[in-house]
């Protein structure tokens, strides 16, 4: 019997190494080790052996053969599985550049992109963001800003008026400064806020002007705020928004709501200057109009165009393209 076991073992090992598929292995597993397999037969006939020693010897040989075959089957099974996986992988090859056009992520408007970038820069400088109505009263758009009814500067704003009230006192805001007034009326200083928003001027559209456009203004009211703080904030903004190689300067200008007033320019790394916007120290009359004591509080305000930022950044020749809603334009950014 020992010989038979040995022969079966040898034959089994040879058969295992000759298998070519996982199915062959499974079949062979049953043939060799199954309930009706070759070795099972030997196990059943162990009892027919006469001597205890023979039975012991044969039993040990049998166990050893089972272990060896089991091990060989497993090894071969792993080899075959790995081969089969390799074949599968090879067969599954895909060309990843065979891309069918699929809906892509949408594109936010260039004004939104500039708007959010500007907000983020000012948030980083410790500002919050305030908003307000686009349809405004003459009071908030002019009077509270040191521009009483007869003020000649009013005519420079090319205001559009509405029929909301019979007296024509409701208009489309010409700047976001009304929000400054509303902020000062509702929040106790210190105030560090920017006011982005849509504004309206009765300007014929051309490559650089739209009657409807967007502006961001800033307002700081605190104790001991000086014009140096204004210049410093403008410069910090310039470097944060455009880059460290950009510089800024202030030069005298006039606005009814600030004094001293300034225009601020930024200097490109190539040395050329761009006029960016207006700024100045909040006029004492404006502080008084919202009930702040100009001897206790001082502050500055500034403002400039958002659309203009987008136009500069992306080299857009004609601002009207930004408002065409032409998908071929929108998709570019």
């Amino acid at each position, binding site marked *: 019997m020992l010989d038979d076991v040995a022969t079966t073992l040898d034959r089994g090992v040879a058969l295992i190494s000759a298998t070519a598929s996982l199915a062959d292995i499974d079949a062979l597993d049953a043939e060799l080790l199954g309930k009706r397999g070759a070795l099972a037969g030997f196990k059943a006939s162990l009892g027919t052996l006469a001597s205890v020693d023979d039975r012991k010897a044969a039993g040990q040989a049998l166990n050893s053969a089972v272990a060896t075959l089991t091990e060989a089957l497993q090894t071969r099974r792993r080899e075959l599985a790995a081969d089969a996986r390799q074949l599968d992988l090879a067969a599954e090859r895909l060309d990843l550049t065979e891309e069918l056009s699929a809906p*892509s992520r949408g594109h936010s408007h260039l004004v939104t992109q500039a708007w959010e970038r500007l907000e983020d820069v000012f948030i980083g400088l*410790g500002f919050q963001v305030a908003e307000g*109505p686009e349809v405004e009263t003459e009071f908030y758009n002019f009077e509270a800003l040191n521009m009483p009814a007869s003020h000649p500067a009013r005519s420079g704003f090319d205001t*559009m008026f509405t029929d909301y009230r019979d007296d024509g006192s409701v208009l489309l805001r010409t700047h976001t400064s009304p929000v400054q007034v509303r902020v000062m009326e509702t929040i106790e200083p210190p105030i560090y806020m920017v006011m982005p928003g849509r504004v309206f001027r009765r300007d014929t559209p051309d490559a650089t002007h739209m009657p409807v456009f967007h502006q961001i203004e800033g307002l700081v009211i605190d104790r001991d705020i000086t014009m140096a703080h204004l210049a410093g*904030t403008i410069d910090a903004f310039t470097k944060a928004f455009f880059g460290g190689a950009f510089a800024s300067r202030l030069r005298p*200008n*006039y606005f009814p709501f600030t004094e001293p007033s300034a225009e601020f320019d930024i200097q490109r790394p190539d040395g050329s200057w761009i006029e960016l916007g207006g700024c100045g120290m909040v006029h004492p009359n404006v502080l008084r109009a919202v009930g702040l004591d100009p001897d206790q509080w001082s502050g500055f305000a500034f403002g400039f165009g958002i659309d203009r930022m987008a136009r500069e950044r992306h080299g857009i020749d004609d601002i009207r393209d930004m408002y065409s809603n032409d998908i071929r334009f929108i998709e570019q950014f």
Partner: protein
Amino acid sequence: MKLVLSWLEELAPALARGGTDPSAVDSLAATMTALGLQVEHVLTVGTTVDGVITARVLRTERHPEAAKVHRVFVDAGDGVERHVWCGAFNMAAGDVLPWATPGTLMPDGRTIEPRPILGISSEGMLCSARELGLGDDHAGILILPSDTPLGVPYGEALGIETETVFDVDLTRNRPDCWGHLGAARDVAAKLGVALAAAPLPLVADGPHRSAPVVLVDGERCPRFSTLVLSGVSVGASTPWMARRLAAAGMRSINNVVDVSNYVMLELNQPNHAYDLDTLGSHGFRIRRAREGETMNTLDGVARTVTADDVLICDGDDVPIGIGGVIGGLESEIVPTTTVVALEVAVFEPTAITRTMNRLGVRSEASGRFERGVDPFGIERTQARFVELLRETCPDLVVHAGAVDERHPSLPAVQRCADVRVSEVNRLLGTALTATQIEALIAPIGYTRLDVGGDANESVLTIVLPSWRTDSHAEIDVVEEVARHYGYDTIGTAVPRSSMHGRLSGVQHRRRRLREVLLGIGLDEAITDTFLHADDLVRASLPGDAIRVTNPLQADEDVLRPSMRPGLLRALAFNESHRRPGVRLFEIGHVYPPGDRVSDLPPEYEGLAVALAGGTAPAAMAVWRELASAMGFGARVDQGKVPTGLHPTRSATLSIGRDIVGSVGEIHPDVLDAFGVSERVAWLELDLSVLLAAEPKIVQWKPISRFPSTDIDLAFQVPDTVAAERVDRAIRQSAAGLLASLRLFDVFRGSGVAEGNRSLAYRLRLQASDRTLTDADIAAVRDKAIAAVVKLGGALRS
């Protein structure tokens, strides 16, 4: 305002230390800009063309084959005969002409090259006046005086002098700079150079002769002065004056009118010379116009004035000018004028603005009165006028009896402001002393009258110059200190914000909303705020809307109550450019008309989504995505469909009684009206409501460790029963055992009764405390079926 360099230099001789050297001019321009006199352009007027010299015609000769040109032989003084083809025939032998030598670059960009005609080349070109930028004359070649030297630049021969002109954009707070003196004073102070002396005060050297003035309305005209001058002879101006006026953009008329304009451009004081002999009663009455009164102004227009306008009338009350704005035709200076009444007056600025706007007239004078002239500059104006007119009228007589009518509304002769040294430094961030402050502003006329205050606070009483009508208070002086100290010397400091920099909750949620929309592939549009009244009709929107009373385009006066017209127009535009299927959203304000009683209309921020080629389920999918991402909740009510939307495929979205939006499809009639051929899925939300609420913070629910079981149920449900109700019924029936419910198939057609559809649901059942038994599952199944049957549905087998 055009400021002529030579003029500024006459008023402040050391101004441009380098003369007209380009770098000195640039540096002066930079100084002006740094003072707030923003130089937009530096112009050079009276330039000549290099390479064009004088030459004498030797002879002319026709060529038998050339009809339109002839041959001209010239000598440029060097004895060499040169041949030029010429198309003009107005010259004869002996004439002196400007000859452009070969290689000359002409003002129109041409370079003169030897261009042969009939094989004979041309050496240079003979020039017309227009070709040299000397006027409009192009009828023939410019013939110069016969004694003109030969071979010299024509500019030299003609005595052309170039002037450097600064084109300056002046701000409203610098009325003084509308005269050269104001600008010269400012720049001289900055550069530390002196102003030239003022003209000597006027001395009347003739007998008493007055032009009396009756100031009926002194509020509109606080000061009106007259001075009678005789011995006037009207003729040409001196060349230098004509040249400066031209450089400043004014045409030379005659010596009297030119002096008047010149003095205005120098001192910012408009003035007017009348022919005294033509003035009724040889005097003036200044009064309000009568409503509807008309007069002929010197531009030849008959103008109707109102009771708000002020008229200058002669002594017989006949209007001769609209005060401060425009003169009349009748009393103008004529060639025979010998006696002149010089008017120098001050008009109230805001009334001038109203008159200008009403009449649509903006003159050199009215612009200056509107900004404010020096109410005490009249004497200097008269003196300067006489000084300059004497140059062409040596027999000029200044008569005694000058009239100077003043009204109490005229400002005080001396206006002052108290300026705290500490306030200057507090606002500018400087550490200036009282002495330094005085030194900065005294040269521009802000002189110290007094020093007061106490040990802690030094207060300067500063006299405000009468020509700075914009200056009233301490802050105005602070600005002057800042300008002359230099904005660029103030330095920079970054304030330490005591606020926490962040977006508000609404702003943060708006950004998230936009991100969600972009993430599902929608592009952002910004459409028109102003609509055509027809747009409302075409979009089936209510007709009542807020209108702009002075719109840019007469028919685009409606403030949009909805973004629908704008977005539909955008879709139509893209469709017409071979881009169907565009999916757009817009976040923007809309302006419903409201009650017109509250201070402001109920403007709010909205979101609109328009999906070209999309159907209602696509709009619902966007709504669901937003609702899930943003924590929005609203009832979908198909019973109420806003006008303009598809009546059977749209719904309103409501929270409680408030409508917060609509969802569905655009009505096909509306699509037709806007020229959109695809279906358009539509969603519109009121963000002022939806973004206002902080979304609830989701609370953790334990995940069951027990196995779950799925059961599928398909029901036949009448079309009249909303799937939402079936969904709700199943959820209620399964109570605590339903882990999820999903509608996975909707089917209409064979096997389903007419007017019904099949709705197939998958219920995943799971308990948190045990494994469900078959009996549990059967019970849920039975209850779910019973609930749907109660709604009118039936289980499909």
